[in-house]
């Protein structure tokens, strides 16, 4: 099971986990609207949909469990009859004595925060195509997935085939964002049908199916208490939250674990008690989407920062600075375990500098406050919203790379990462080119194909730049020993005297004494007339696996300047700034793209996108007319500023950056809206941000 937390985590965290099985097709019970209960194979989708109308299903309506409160009620119907209750997991992590601090009479506030349900909307929906070869009893699967090796394993296990007879390829996928980061029933069902029918079978999800049946995300509710002193030092946080997992938990406790691990953010807070209750309901399963549990926790923490500042009459920026971990305390041990079981240690960075830089990019705090006062005097509402966060990236357990030098001298690299448009081929070619002193166009990259590399983990959790790049470097280092050994043999010199330069191995200081990678590869070929040193095996190919010690910590501050439209209540983002540190950037242009794309999704999640169910668990947002995805014209001016603090946890110094952009926008915008409407005392406790509520606050100010 890819999702089972390791023993070190299980030992460190109070937990109770009862993950229900998810059937490939519903049999005795249908648990959510959209769950497949029959499969139709036809020669066209038109015919299949006509046929679907001919299927009569005899369903007995059962009482719906449409909300977490309904799920937790004492007489609640059970979503899974074989479980004791609708609670499928409880987690609790403590450090210090939050309960004691909160009971000690210090200042404190308590609030309830709700993160609504929304989902990833890649331009390409999911899809699975499979072809069976009866001669070899083997299956090839082309799946729009982020995890080809996991798909292969699941199919092999379910169909009783050895993994070597299943190949999964994810060619040029148009967006993933986590929604394709686990195995779906269709990933198994389509290969099963191809094998059973002996014909290729294709299933391409349409947008309605995507909204109905691809996993949703976020959707939790926090009851939080925070204790602080008069100087604005946060002393303790206690957070009890409930996560609505929908009918199943395809990625286990990943998201709520992230919420807990990231809750304290870049702040030095001595006492924490965080407990998650994961419940099942009659809704589409909930699984990671870009940020995976982090946007939820960051929404809570960063709203709290502003609320505490308000209590103390302090500027929220100042309050953050008073609580932020200063750079001289790096590496900083937080005192809680990460979900890989390793204690959380922020490895590097300068959190206050990122905050300062973000505010300065908006004109500086004094100028912003002066402009805000002037706006208020004119009856306009202008606010500053800030959100700072940290992000564990590059999660393990491993990723592999095969590096091979062809007799042509070209470099071939294969790795288990799966790209969905983020530019993996480009950055892996860059990394390999640097390792071998060649240009990126001399590198051929194979990703997302179980036929290219035996073991892999896939592209989730902002992990590929860290893990695949490091694996390429590691495999290259091992292969270089052999390349140098052959070169030394041919040039008749010591290995220590050799260097790589422009695709050639040459004697240091004597560039005329050199030999090309192609010549070395030809010399290394097995067979007659090879020119390897005695005793060396043939070929130039190495596979190595990089196993990171733990995650490496990226961080960022987002800041938004927002003005409210008085007629519509719409928050108009005048400018949005991201100061982001994900270590050494392999490709700054692609890094910009990653951050910008994430911010767009975060803005969508904060302002527009919302999965809505009625009290019977019926989905009300089944099309893109009802589920509103932001478009280019909804985007404000966004400035991305990169800081580059090298990670000490890998030789390349890189940290992950796939998810960061999407984490903070909902709360940065919420904070800005509340700041703009401070004269009304307006506070946001739930996403999405609603214009109608903003208008009510304006009415309150204007009378």
């Amino acid at each position, binding site marked *: 099971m890819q999702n089972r937390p390791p023993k070190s985590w299980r030992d460190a965290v109070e937990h109770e986990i009862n993950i229900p099985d998810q059937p490939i097709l519903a049999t005795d019970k249908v648990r959510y609207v959209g769950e497949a209960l029959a499969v139709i194979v036809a020669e066209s*989708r*038109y015919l299949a*949909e*006509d046929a679907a*109308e001919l299927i009569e299903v005899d369903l007995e309506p059962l009482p719906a469990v449409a909300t977490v409160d309904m799920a937790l009620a004492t007489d609640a119907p059970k979503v899974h009859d074989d479980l004791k209750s609708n609670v499928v997991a409880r987690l609790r992590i403590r450090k210090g004595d939050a309960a004691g601090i909160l009971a000690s009479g210090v200042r404190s506030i308590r609030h309830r925060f709700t993160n609504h349900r929304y989902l990833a909307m890649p331009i390409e929906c999911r899809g699975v195509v499979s072809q069976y070869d009866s001669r070899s009893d083997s299956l090839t699967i082309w799946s729009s997935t982020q995890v080809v090796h996991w798909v292969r394993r699941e199919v092999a296990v379910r169909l009783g085939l050895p993994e070597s007879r299943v190949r999964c390829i994810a060619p040029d996928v148009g967006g993933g964002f986590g929604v394709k980061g686990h195995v779906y029933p269709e990933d198994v069902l389509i290969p099963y049908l191809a094998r059973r029918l002996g014909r290729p079978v294709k299933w391409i999800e*349409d*947008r*309605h199916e995507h909204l109905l049946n691809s996993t949703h995300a976020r959707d939790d509710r926090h009851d939080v208490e925070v204790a602080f002193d008069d100087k604005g030092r946060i002393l303790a946080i206690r957070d009890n939250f409930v996560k609505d997992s929908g009918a199943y938990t395809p990625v286990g406790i990943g998201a709520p674990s992230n919420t807990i691990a990231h809750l304290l953010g870049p702040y030095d807070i001595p006492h924490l008690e965080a407990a998650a209750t994961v419940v099942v309901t009659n809704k589409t399963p909930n699984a990671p989407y870009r940020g995976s549990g982090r946007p939820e926790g960051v929404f809570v923490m960063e709203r709290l920062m502003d609320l505490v500042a308000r209590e103390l009459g302090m500027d929220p920026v100042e309050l953050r600075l008073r609580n932020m971990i200063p750079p001289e305390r790096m590496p900083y041990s937080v005192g809680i375990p990460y979900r890989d079981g390793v204690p959380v240690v922020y490895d590097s960075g300068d959190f206050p500098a990122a905050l300062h830089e973000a505010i300065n990019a908006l004109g500086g705090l004094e100028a912003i406050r002066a402009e805000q006062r002037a706006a208020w005097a004119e009856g306009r509402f202008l606010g500053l919203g800030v959100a700072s966060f940290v992000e564990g990236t590059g999660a393990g357990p491993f990723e592999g790379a095969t590096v091979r030098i062809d007799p042509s001298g070209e470099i071939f690299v294969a790795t288990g990462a799966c790209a969905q448009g983020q530019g993996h081929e480009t950055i892996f070619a860059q990394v390999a080119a640097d390792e071998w002193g060649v240009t990126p166009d001399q590198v051929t990259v194979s990703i997302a194909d179980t036929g290219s590399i035996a073991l892999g983990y896939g592209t989730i959790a902002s992990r590929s730049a860290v893990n695949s790049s490091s694996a390429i470097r590691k495999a290259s280092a091992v292969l270089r020993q052999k390349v140098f050994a052959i070169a030394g043999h041919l040039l008749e010199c010591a290995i220590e005297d050799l260097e790589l330069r422009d695709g050639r191995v040459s004697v240091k200081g004597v560039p005329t004494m050199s030999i090309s990678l192609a010549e070395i590869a030809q010399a290394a070929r097995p067979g007659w007339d090879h020119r390897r040193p005695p005793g060396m095996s043939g070929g130039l190919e190495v596979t190595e696996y990089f196993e990171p010690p733990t995650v490496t910590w990226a961080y960022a501050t987002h800041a938004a300047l927002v003005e409210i*439209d*008085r*007629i*519509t*209540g*719409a928050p*108009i983002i005048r400018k949005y700034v991201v100061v982001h540190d994900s270590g050494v950037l392999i490709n700054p242009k692609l890094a910009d793209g990653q951050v910008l794309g994430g911010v767009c999704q975060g803005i969508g999640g904060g302002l*527009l996108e*919302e999965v*809505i169910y009625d009290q019977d668990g019926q989905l*009300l*947002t089944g*099309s893109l*007319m*009802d589920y*509103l995805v*932001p*478009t280019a*014209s*909804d985007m404000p001016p966004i400035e991305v500023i990169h800081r580059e603090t090298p990670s000490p946890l890998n030789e390349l110094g890189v940290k992950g950056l796939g998810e960061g952009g999407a984490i903070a926008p909902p709360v940065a915008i919420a904070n800005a809206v509340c700041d703009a409407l401070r004269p009304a005392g307006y506070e946001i406790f739930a996403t999405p941000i609603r*214009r*109608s509520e903003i*208008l009510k606050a304006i009415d309150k100010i204007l009378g």
Partner: protein
Amino acid sequence: MKPAPFNYRAPDKLTEALDLLATYGSDAKVLAGGQSLVPAMNFRLNRFALLIDINRIRELEYIRIDGQVLRIGALTRHRDIEMSPLVREHAPLVAEAVRHVAHLPIRTRGTIGGSLSHADPAAESPAIVLALDGTLVLQSRTGARSVRATEFFQGMFSTALQPNELLVEIQLPVAQPGQRFAFEEVSRRRGDFAIVGVGAMVNLQHGRISQARFAACGVGTGPVRLRAAEQLLEQQVPTAALFARAAAAAAAAVDPQTDIHADAEYRRRLLAGLVERVGMRAAGLSEGAKRD
């Protein structure tokens, strides 16, 4: 999301289309730009025996002036209306409002006749035709009849069109000296159906409003004339205070729907804001407002 089976005909003469409608009646559906119909078909919300594609009937695609009447063929694309100098000169309200209809690719396919026949309560065109007191020409094999916009719209997706009739022409009165126009809408994203939209004509004669026409979309089961606001404005000297009162009166008189995009209270609040903003603009009391 594939449609249920249907038969398809694409006549190139109006008479052929009307013959088919006479034969099939409510078993037929007319395809113009298809921007609302095709999604509904793909969701299988619409089922019919015959789809009559009228896109080849070029005789229904025109914009012309006929005395004091601007005539627009029902098959005219939103984009052609948007780009038409005749429309800009003689029906500036239409020219302004049509820019709010969805996005360019949709305006390039979608037709004014399709929009009016579909009668989505959030659509711009019905409100505009209502505000301008337009007339719609409905034709069947047995003849044509003219129906005023006030009678044409009969509620949610419902019109005076009979199953054997086709909307063939929209007639709008040509703008007169003194008449000023404005249209604005609020949608959650640019190009979406309006949550609320308001179109206005204000006739200013000797410093007074001699005539006011206000219509809104998104605040009822169809386009809504805002008569309470009109009555309050007529014969008055336009001032900001007057438009604020008219806005309140308009908002008090409507009965908006609640849906997932906006509740009734928010729609009412938006309506008031837009009536005020549109009225002020039409009366020349404020500069053109920005789109959000």
